[in-house]
């Protein structure tokens, strides 16, 4: 059907074809399209929906399902066969007729639909996808009502678990290859592949093909469930739980990392039933990692705290009213702040100097609004700068770096910038484990020419999947390595647009933050700080560190301090920079600080867990604001339950500095909607709790709601001075001490794995099943020297215990031991951290041959 434009003169009246575009006709409409655009996209822009299954805008074209056939005419000649619009690009003067105007295209599409359905089971009524299924929908729009197929359908055993969280129903599969293409192209994980051929072709893993081998061990496997256009891939945790039309879908933001990934939470009856990736091209595109997707049942955990608790006369915690709990907390904190608590006595009963002051450890998972409330609470109610959100290894050097490069700097390096960058260097950042969405974008960048370099110890999966450019160095020698980068890396970083991504672990190596600062000054590369936790960037910007006030104002900047005091309507603010996390804990343990306010902090994550326990034990007052029972609860005098992200509105400021606002998913005041395990959860956002607590202490924070807190924070703006101080490295940047009496100088390298039994991973056994098995890694030479073969148990020995894990040989430098920083215990509740064993990245470590006495638990 050659369609000349209805009015030929119209052609002449049209504006000239824009540069880089072509002009074609689709269904009698003239359209300009950028060169190289796929026909199916041009059709979309015109509002013409061509049915499709294999096509996905973020995946390379496949042309496998043949559902999107259209008729195409080139140079006045009709192409003999209908063409797949998902693989054909636009061309000048092309004439396209879709099913709207071509009987041939329409019949071709109807024919393909009928063929897709002949072997598709009629189990829509019990299929998780039913109601949101592209096959169902397009069968209605582009299929015939009755099938002519009377032969036997091909059947398979089903479902087939291809991992602990993804189930495969091969009968439903239309073999569009979206899942395999996603895994290969986007995630770089080739655990799933097509097997067999013809009608018996199926998706499978090494395990399903051979009965043993690798299953679908990808951190991004859940995305395949979401992009599956049929119900072939389903989630083990969501299977048979609900129908999509019974769910309320609320947009949200990932609380699991600093990515700011857009998510969609589907919920009903007060509980989230699943989390899906939201669509935000600037941030996470349409992908999220499995932690973000599958870890949501912590809000339903039996460990959730739903009512305030105070420690009773008998020393046990009892539930009480908000009023009593807040009064008690306010009284205790006021006394502790003013040094009016119980007078300490020494062993002889002599009165000692009274303890004074309260330190605040809010944790790194706060929303911007809650963080702001904490910052204000510390300064106004507790009159201190002893506040630090860094529940991890940290340093004073890091504070300098944050002040110079991060605090109050607004939107900096973006995901898009990574994609455009000629070269990226990651420092102290294992992207796939610590920032999975950043990893995906780096992989995408690497596929289009960005040289991605990693400063690290071995060719981890992230290194391999982003192009395999490793700047290998011994742990602790990162500073030296940055000073002597190989020419290709240094030259790459000198190109305009190059980026250095530095992770929070830089604090583990003295001088590394300073070296990064020096490197970017030398090369002109842009730098971005990529912390692990969702609230870390917000905490820096709101002043949840001892040297900074909200907006990046320095505590020791008198002008800025005065301006902030005036905004807050107070005479002055505490003027001396506060203690950092380690110092707060030490001061509490040493009897200097009287009280601690602790937010979402896991003791095991702290650099010195034993010190933290001592501090909590020694403090007169411990007030805990928590979601769920934790080790801190055991020490708390008052426990104030706070709302999880699904029960409040807020903002996460992600690593880019981008504000990711979200509304309340489930309103906790909405009767049954807020129930946790059958009990109405009377939890409130931290900002509200702190506001009320402050009122009890005769201080007004004006942070009753996240909205109010957010508005005030925005009004404050940033107080960032034009120049910031240099990043001071350690005064004596000497090499880490290298002493080992036995002469085997082994150094520890370490970072955390994505799925390692973190607090928000509670009650997710399916997710835990896909965690990477913890391993100790050694170079082949070192393994040989120490007498380890692959899979032999080895014992990492630290001053405070040891840990036994199997050995894997990797391309580490010699005499280096890599071990995951945190290993979940087999019982699912305990964890072992290297910090808990007294070990740290770059420090000395001993490796024992393992003994049956200590089976992976701290001795």
């Amino acid at each position, binding site marked *: 059907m050659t369609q000349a434009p209805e009015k030929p003169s119209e052609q002449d009246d049209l504006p000239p074809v824009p540069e880089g575009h072509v002009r074609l006709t689709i269904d009698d409409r003239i359209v300009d399209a950028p060169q190289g655009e796929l026909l199916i996209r041009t059709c979309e822009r015109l509002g013409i929906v061509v049915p499709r299954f294999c096509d996905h805008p973020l995946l390379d074209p496949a*042309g496998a399902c*043949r559902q999107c056939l259209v008729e195409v005419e080139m140079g006045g000649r009709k192409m003999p066969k209908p063409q797949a619009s998902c693989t054909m690009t636009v061309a000048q003067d092309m004439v396209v007729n879709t099913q709207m105007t071509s009987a041939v295209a329409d019949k071709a599409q109807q*024919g393909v639909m009928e063929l*897709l359905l002949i072997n598709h089971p009629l189990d829509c009524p019990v299929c998780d996808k039913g109601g949101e299924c592209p096959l169902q929908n397009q069968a209605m729009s582009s299929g015939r009502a009755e099938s002519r197929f009377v032969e036997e359908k091909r059947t398979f055993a089903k479902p087939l678990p291809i991992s602990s969280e993804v189930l495969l129903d091969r009968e439903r599969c239309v073999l569009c290859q979206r899942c395999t293409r996603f895994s290969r192209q986007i995630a770089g994980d080739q655990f799933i592949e097509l097997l067999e051929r013809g009608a*018996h*072709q199926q998706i499978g893993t090494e395990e399903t093909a051979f009965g043993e081998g690798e299953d679908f061990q990808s951190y991004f496997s859940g995305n395949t469930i979401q992009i599956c256009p049929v119900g072939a891939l389903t989630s083990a945790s969501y299977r048979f739980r609900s129908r999509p039309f019974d769910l309320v879908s609320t947009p949200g933001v990932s609380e699991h990392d600093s990515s700011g990934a857009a998510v969609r939470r589907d919920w009903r009856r007060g509980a989230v039933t699943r989390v899906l990736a939201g669509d935000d091209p600037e941030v996470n595109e349409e992908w999220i990692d499995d932690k973000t997707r599958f870890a949501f049942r912590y809000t339903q955990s039996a460990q959730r705290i739903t009512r305030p608790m105070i420690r009773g006369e008998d020393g046990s915690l009892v539930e009480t009213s908000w009023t009593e709990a807040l009064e008690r907390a306010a009284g205790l904190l006021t006394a502790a702040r003013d040094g009016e608590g119980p007078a300490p006595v020494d062993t002889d009963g002599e009165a000692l100097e009274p303890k004074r002051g309260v330190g605040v450890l809010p944790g790194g998972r706060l929303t911007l609004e809650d963080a702001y409330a904490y910052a204000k609470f510390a300064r106004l109610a507790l009159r201190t700068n002893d506040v630090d959100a860094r529940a991890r290894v940290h340093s004073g050097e890091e504070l300098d770096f944050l002040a110079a490069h991060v605090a109050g700097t607004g939107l900096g390096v973006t995901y898009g910038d990574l994609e455009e960058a000629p070269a990226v260097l990651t420092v102290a950042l294992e992207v796939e484990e610590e920032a999975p969405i950043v990893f995906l974008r780096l992989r995408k960048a690497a596929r289009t020419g960005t040289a991605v370099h990693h400063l690290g110890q071995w060719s981890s999966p992230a290194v391999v999947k982003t192009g395999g450019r490793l700047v290998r160095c011994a742990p602790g020698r990162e500073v030296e390595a940055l000073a002597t980068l190989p020419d290709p890396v240094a030259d790459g970083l000198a190109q305009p647009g190059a980026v250095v991504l530095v992770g929070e672990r830089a604090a583990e190596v003295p001088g590394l933050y300073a070296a990064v600062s020096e490197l970017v000054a030398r090369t002109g590369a842009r730098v971005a700080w990529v912390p692990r936790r969702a609230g870390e960037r917000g905490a820096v910007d709101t002043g949840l560190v001892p040297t900074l006030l909200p907006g990046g104002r320095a505590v020791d900047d008198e002008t800025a301090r005065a301006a902030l005091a005036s905004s807050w309507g107070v005479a002055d603010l505490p003027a001396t920079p506060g203690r950092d996390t380690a110092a707060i804990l030490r001061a509490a343990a040493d009897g200097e600080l009287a009280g601690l306010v602790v937010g979402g902090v896991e003791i095991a994550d702290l650099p010195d867990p034993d010190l933290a326990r001592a501090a909590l034990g020694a403090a007169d007052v411990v007030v805990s604001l928590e979601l769920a029972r934790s080790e801190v609860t055991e020490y708390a005098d008052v426990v104030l339950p706070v709302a999880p992200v699904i029960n409040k509105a807020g903002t996460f400021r992600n690593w880019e500095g981008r504000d990711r606002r979200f509304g309340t998913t489930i309103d906790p005041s909405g009767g049954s909607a807020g129930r946790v395990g059958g009990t109405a959860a009377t939890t409130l956002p931290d900002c509200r709790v702190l506001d009320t607590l402050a009122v009890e202490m005769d201080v007004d924070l004006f942070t009753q709601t996240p909205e109010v807190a957010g508005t005030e924070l925005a009004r404050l703006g940033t107080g960032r001075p034009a120049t910031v101080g240099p990043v001071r490295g350690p005064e004596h940047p000497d090499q880490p001490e290298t002493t080992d009496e036995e002469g085997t100088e082994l150094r520890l390298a370490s970072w955390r794995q994505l799925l390692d039994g973190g607090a928000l991973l509670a009650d997710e056994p399916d997710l835990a099943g896909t965690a990477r098995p913890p391993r100790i890694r050694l170079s082949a030479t070192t393994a040989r020297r120490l007498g380890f073969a692959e899979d032999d148990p080895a014992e990492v020995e630290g001053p405070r215990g040891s840990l036994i894990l199997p050995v894997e040989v990797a391309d580490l430098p010699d005499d280096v031991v890599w071990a995951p920083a945190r290993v979940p215990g087999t019982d699912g509740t305990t964890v072992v951290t290297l910090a808990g064993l007294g070990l740290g990245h770059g420090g000395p470590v001993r490796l024992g041959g393992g003994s049956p006495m200590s089976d992976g638990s701290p001795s």
Partner: protein
Amino acid sequence: MPDPLTPVLTKRWLGPESWTLRHYTELGGYEALDKALNTPPDDIVALVKDSGLRGRGGAGFPTGMKWSFIPQAKPGEEPRGPAAKPKYLVINADEGEPGTCKDVPLMMADPHSLIEGCIITSWAIRAHFCVIYVRGEVVHVLRRLHAAVREAYDAGHLGKDIHGSGFDLDIVVHAGAGAYICGEETALLDSLEGRRGQPRLKPPFPATAGLYAAPTVVNNVETIATVPSIVTGGKDWFRTMGRERSPGPKIYSLSGHVERPGQYEAPLGTTLRELLDLAGGMKDGIPLKFWTPGGSSTPLLTADHLDVPLDFEGATEAGSMLGTTALMIFNETVSVPWAVMKWTEFYEHESCGKCTPCREGCYWLAGILRRMVDGEGTESDIDTLLDVCDNVLGRSFCALGDGAVSPITSGIKYFRQEFVELCTAQQRHPEVDRIVELSGASA
């Protein structure tokens, strides 16, 4: 009347130990190579182009033109883009088309003609690496090719500085794993790269991004084995055989109900009537019923087509295709629906599964045909067959789906009555009668 046979490729086949280098050399083997290595590569491409040689794998694409698509650096210029990459020659020896048996005997009887052709072609396209991708089941061919390649290396025809020309070439004989789809050139390349053999999206075409994303020529065994004779004999000699647009000799392989099945090398354009004469006529004198001109993927023809000239144009004009010139001859004892069913079961088994129409269509078509042959079809099944064929033909990703429906559509076209009769038989099926009776529908 001139001899209807033109032994060019087959002229050495009957010699003693014809597959040996000694025998090949005695009959003038590797002389073309010397001549070629003293000719500029572009001239070889032009020679083959002028000779009119067309691909013998089935599609009949002009061979010289295919070679000329390989991007080459311009003289005196720094090569850029694909031209800067290495070039590869890949020989498609994955002969798997039902009824086709020409490349296997050629490689068995005269492997050196293929190897010499490979060297000349590689010289012409500036390739230094050539792969012969052989169907995995034919282990005897693999053994013979390996031996021949070894002989050629030992004699200095392969390896470094071939015949003192400075030209290097390595040949690898690679065994496929027995998938029909790997005869499709892009699936073959994927298979060769160690991936799952499924056709690739085109463009890019192999000429710019083939093996390892480098410019690649994929040619059939017979095509390349013809090249040395063109270099020796010249284009005019070559054009004395065959017809204007389909010149040269062709190995016709006759199988089925003929007295002397086998390979007959005759000029393109030879008719089945002539070939049957050569093969001693129909077996036991039972008359011809139907035949395929070039394997099961080419629509079948009938006794009315005995005088169709079997070249690319002639077969197409008759409503079929020349294909691989694998003539399967069936006499009147064979049921067309049965034969069609068997062929369809082959495609059902061999469909690679990548695209919906071929994967599901072949499954469905085979199911219907089995049911019809079992006597449980209805006349409406014939319409369903044809409509499903229509939904597969031209809708599938590669030509496998097109080939799969050829026997069905052509079978029904010429022998519809046989399909109808199967259905009529079904109507008299006692079980049906009983159901009709029990349901009271006969009243």
